[in-house]
C-alpha cells in the first residue's frame, strides 16, 4: 500500500476516534447528569431524609431565603451528632458484646463521625484536642451552575416547586449525584410548561426573557 493511502487511513481512524470521543463526552454547559463525586464524609441523603424524615431546609436553610440553598456548617451536624456517633446497629452490637463480656459499654465512633469531629479539632469523646487544628470540611460541589447563568432558589422554592423537580429524588440517594441535566433546555422547558399548566394549581409567569438568567 502506498504511504499516502496509509497516511489517509491513519488520519481517518484518528478523526473517527475523535468524533466518537466528542459524541460520548459532549455535554451542554450545566449538564452534569450522573456526576457522583466521592465526598470527604460518606453522607447519605437516604438515611437522613427518608429514614429519619429530616426536612431539606433543616440543613439547606438558604433555599427559601437566599439565592443559594447553602451547605450546613459543621455545628448543624453536631446538633444531632453530638449524641449520635455511630449507626444504631453498631451501638446495639457493642451493647450486646459488653453485656456478654460483662464490661462497660464503650463509645463507638464511626469513620464518618470521626472525620466530622476531627474537622472541629475534637477527639472521640468530643473534648477539644490541642494537637488537631480545626479545618473546615471541603465538600465537593455536586451541582454547579455555569457562571454565565443566574439562578435564584427563592423564586422557585417560594412558589412551591419541590427540590426534587431539579435535584431528582435526592432523599433516596446513598451518595449525592446530579440527577438530571441543568442545561438551558431543561430550564426553558420547565418555564414553558409552568406558564401553560401553572405550579401547584396556581397560574405563574415564568420569564422566558434572555436577561432573566443571562444578566
Amino acid at each position, binding site marked *: 500500500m502506498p504511504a499516502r493511502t496509509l497516511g489517509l487511513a491513519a488520519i481517518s481512524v484518528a478523526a473517527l476516534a475523535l468524533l466518537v470521543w466528542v459524541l460520548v463526552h459532549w455535554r451542554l454547559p450545566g449538564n452534569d447528569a450522573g456526576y457522583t463525586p466521592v465526598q470527604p464524609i460518606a453522607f447519605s441523603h437516604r438515611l437522613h431524609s427518608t429514614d429519619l424524615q429530616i426536612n431539606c431546609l433543616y440543613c439547606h436553610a438558604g433555599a427559601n431565603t437566599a439565592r443559594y440553598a447553602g451547605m450546613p456548617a459543621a455545628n448543624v451536624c453536631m446538633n444531632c451528632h453530638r449524641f449520635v456517633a455511630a449507626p444504631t446497629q453498631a451501638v446495639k452490637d457493642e451493647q450486646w458484646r459488653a453485656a456478654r463480656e460483662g464490661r462497660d459499654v464503650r463509645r463507638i465512633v464511626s469513620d464518618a463521625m470521626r472525620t466530622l469531629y476531627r474537622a472541629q479539632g475534637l477527639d472521640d469523646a468530643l473534648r477539644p484536642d490541642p494537637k488537631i487544628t480545626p479545618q473546615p470540611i471541603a465538600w465537593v*460541589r455536586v451541582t454547579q451552575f455555569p457562571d454565565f447563568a443566574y439562578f435564584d432558589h427563592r423564586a422557585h422554592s417560594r412558589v412551591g416547586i419541590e427540590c426534587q423537580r431539579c435535584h431528582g429524588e435526592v432523599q433516596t440517594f446513598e451518595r449525592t449525584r446530579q440527577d438530571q441535566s441543568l442545561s438551558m433546555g431543561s430550564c426553558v422547558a420547565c418555564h414553558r410548561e409552568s406558564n401553560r399548566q401553572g405550579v401547584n394549581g396556581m397560574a405563574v409567569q415564568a420569564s422566558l426573557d434572555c436577561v432573566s438568567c443571562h444578566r
Partner: protein
Amino acid sequence: MSKFDTTSRRTFLQAAGFTIAAAAMPGCSRPPERSRVTHLVQPEVASPGERLQYATTCPGCSAGCGVLASVRDGRPVKLEGLPGHPVSQGGLCAAGQASILGLYDGKRVRQPRLDGKPVSWDRIDAGLKTEFAAARGATRVLTGTDAAASPTTRAMISRFLGGFADARHDVYDVLSASAIADAHRATHGARVIPRFRFDRADVVVAFEADFLGTWISPVEFAAAYTRQRPRLHVQVESRMTLTGSKADRRIVVAPGDLGPTMAALVARLASRAGHGVVVPAVLPTGLTAETMDRLADSLWRARGRALVACGSENVPLQRLVSFANEMLQAYGSTLDLTRPSRQRLGDDASIARLTRELETGAVGVLVTSGVNPIHELPEGSQWAELLTKVPVWVSVAERVDETAALARYLCPSPHPFESWGDYEPIAGTVCLRQPTTAAVGRHALAGCQPRRVERCAARCRGAAAGPLARRGV
C-alpha cells in the same frame, strides 16, 4: 529560511480551525471540580447561602476609601463602595474592585521562612531577638503609606524603633506625591499634602494631575467633582487622561514645557496680584499670550474659589503652584491645610538618604513591610544588591515578590480583609478595618497564620509588647 515561512494561508486556516475546535471541546465537558468549604460553627447572624455585608477600608491603594464587602458562607465575594463614607462617598474604583483577588491569590506565603525554608514563628522570634540584640548600626523600617497612615501600625512601629539608638521609619509611594509635601515644607513650614476640595472650586486648572483617574485620591475627587462640578475646568497635560477628557478646555503641552507654561501662568497671576513681576514674553509652542491671559483672568476672577493642581514631581514647580494657590486665596477654601490628606506620606528625599546609608553599610537592621523596593523603586536593581548586604533584614510580605524572595527572614502578613486595622486617610478622619473572613487557605502547622507587621514587631520586642499586640491586633 525555516519551514514556518512557507506556511500558506490555507495551511494556517486549517491549523487554526483544528486548534480552536480542540480548545472549544473541554468547554463542553464537565467543569473542574470545585469544593464547597463550609463553616465549622455558623455565626449567629449568618445562615448558609445568605449574603452578609461588612464595612471596612479598601486596601486597593492608599486613598482609604470605604468598602462594603459582600460575604457569602464566610468568604468575601464582591466589593462595593460604602455609602456616605467621608472619603469615597460611596464610590469604588477598578483597583478597589480588584483588590479582593489578592485575598485568594494562590501565591500568598502562608508560613514564615528562614533562609527560604518554612519554619515556625517561634524560630523566627527567637532568631530575631538574638539578632536584634547583637545588631550594630542604624535601624530602619521601610513601609508604604498604608502602614504609615494607620495610627496603630505607626504607633507600634515607633514603639519598636524606640528600643534602638539610631532608628527611622521611611515611607515611599509607588505613585509618589512627595514634591507637593516638600513644596509645602518650603512655603508653609509643614511637610503635608493639603486636602484638595474640588467640590468647593469654581475654576480648576490642573497641570498633569489626573485627579479623576490616578492622582492621590481619585474616587474622593470624582465624588466631589460630580457633586459640585467646577464652572470651568482646564487641563494642561501632555497625554490624554480621563481627567483631560472631562475638562472644559484641554491644553496640550510637551512634558518639557510644563514648567514654562506654569511660570507664564503664575507670572500673570502675580502681576494681577500687584507683585510687579515681568511676564515672560516667550511661550511654549502652541500657546498664545491670549490663551494664558484668559486662563489667568478666569482664575483671578474666581479668587477664593479657584484651585491650581499639579501632578509634577518637580519641587520648584510645586512651589510655584503653592504660590499661585496662595495668591488665589485657595488655602482655607479649596485647599484644606488644617485637616490635610494623609494618603501619600512617601518622602523621596528620605529614600535617597536610605539608599546612601545602605551603600555605606550604615544600616544594621532593616524591616521592609508591604513594599517591594526592588520592583518599585527606580534604582531597584541596585537595591537588590544593597538589601542582601544588610546584616539583619526582615521582610514582612503577603507574597514572595522580587524583594521578599531575597530576604533571610520572611514573615507573611495577612491580607487586610483577614485582619483588624485602622487608617487615617485625612487627618482627624479615622477609618476602621475589620476582618471579613477567617484566614484563607490551609496552614501546614497550627499557629502559623500570617501576622501583621505590628505584631511581628511586638513579638520581637518581647516584654515591650503593648496591649494592642496582646489582643492580637
